Structures are given as structure tokens and as C-alpha cells.
């Protein structure tokens, strides 16, 4: 599943560690989501949407497989 996490994080000038702290997950998890190797659980996806104040579908695109 493709997502805009890296782009949204860069807009805020946050490191992966910053984002991991805000989401209460490990940096490895943030990296795995950004690179499309791991799809987050529903609670984490909602947490990400809440953090960026965006609807989930504007962050995650289930139609497009990530590279």
C-alpha cells in the first residue's frame, strides 16, 4: 500500500525518530511503513491520520501498490 508518510513528515521537518516518538512506535516501524514494506494496523493508521490532521485516504492509497 502506497502512502504519503515520508512526504508529510518532510513537510514538518521531522526525522523518522521524531515521528516514531509522536506515534509511540519504533523508528523501524516508521521506516517500514514509509518504504511500503509494512502496512500499519488500523489503530496506528488512525493515529497517523490524527497526527497529520488528514483523512486516512489522503495518506494511504490502497489501490496503488508501493515500489
Amino acid at each position, binding site marked *: 500500500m502506497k502512502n504519503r508518510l515520508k512526504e508529510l513528515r518532510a513537510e514538518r521537518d521531522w526525522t523518522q525518530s521524531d515521528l516514531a*516518538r509522536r*506515534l*509511540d*512506535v519504533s523508528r523501524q516501524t516508521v*521506516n*517500514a511503513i514509509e518504504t511500503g*514494506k*509494512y502496512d500499519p494496523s488500523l489503530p496506528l493508521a488512525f493515529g497517523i491520520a490524527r497526527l497529520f490532521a488528514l483523512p486516512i485516504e489522503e495518506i494511504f492509497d490502497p489501490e496503488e501498490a508501493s515500489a
Partner: protein
Amino acid sequence: MHSTDQPTPAGPSRRQREQRAKRGSTVASLLWALALMGTTFLAKREGIPFAVVLAGVILTALAGVATIFAHFRYLRQTDELQRKIQLESLALAFGIGVVGGMSWWLLVVSGVGKGTDLGFVFVAMLLLYSAGILVGCRRYS
């Protein structure tokens, strides 16, 4: 959202709880391994009273139960990606252990294989579990 490094008003953060649970799991595993080695050593020596060996067996079993609960606790506290890696590794080790062990047992029953010592299956499961963790960490990083 709170920082994973700072304790919250409600108590320690998730990362602190995870680290504590991981330490507990590691210590319990080491104690179990030491108890297992010690009891095996005592059981193979001559002149050791049966009661001492039995106490060693009971101690090893108790340490094993503590290890299981400590690992459950770690799985509950850990990050969702780590939990996925752990579960995949456990599934790999258990699956191959059961299939490999039963295949070996069938060979013995059918007369093709010799020996009934299945100790190697448990060693293989431990190695596969460790390998699964390493592969999982590489795959998701």
C-alpha cells in the same frame, strides 16, 4: 500522543515497558537455559541423589513456565512491527519443528531412520526462531 521515552502521568511509557519486558524475557530465558544445563549435568553424573535431580527438573520446569509468561508479556508490550516479526519467527520455528520432528518420527517408525532422540528438533527450533528474527529485522528495515 506522548513521547515513547518519557514516563506518562499514568506510569512508564510504552518503550520503557517494552524494554523492561524484554529484559525480563531475556533473564528468564537465561535462567531456564542454566537450569536445563545444570540439571542435565547432574542427571548424567553418578552418585547424585534422585531427590536432587528431581528438584532440578522441577526448577527447570518452573523456569520454563516463567520464560513463557515473560515472553507473552514482551509480546503484549512490544511495538506492532516487532510483534509481527516475533510471531512470524515463532510460526516458522514451530511449523518446521513439528513437520521435521514428525517426519523424523515417521522415518524411525517405518524403520528407515534410527534412534529416538528428538533433542535436535528443539535445538533446530531455537536456531530457526533466532534466524527468523534476524531475517524479519532485515526484511522490514
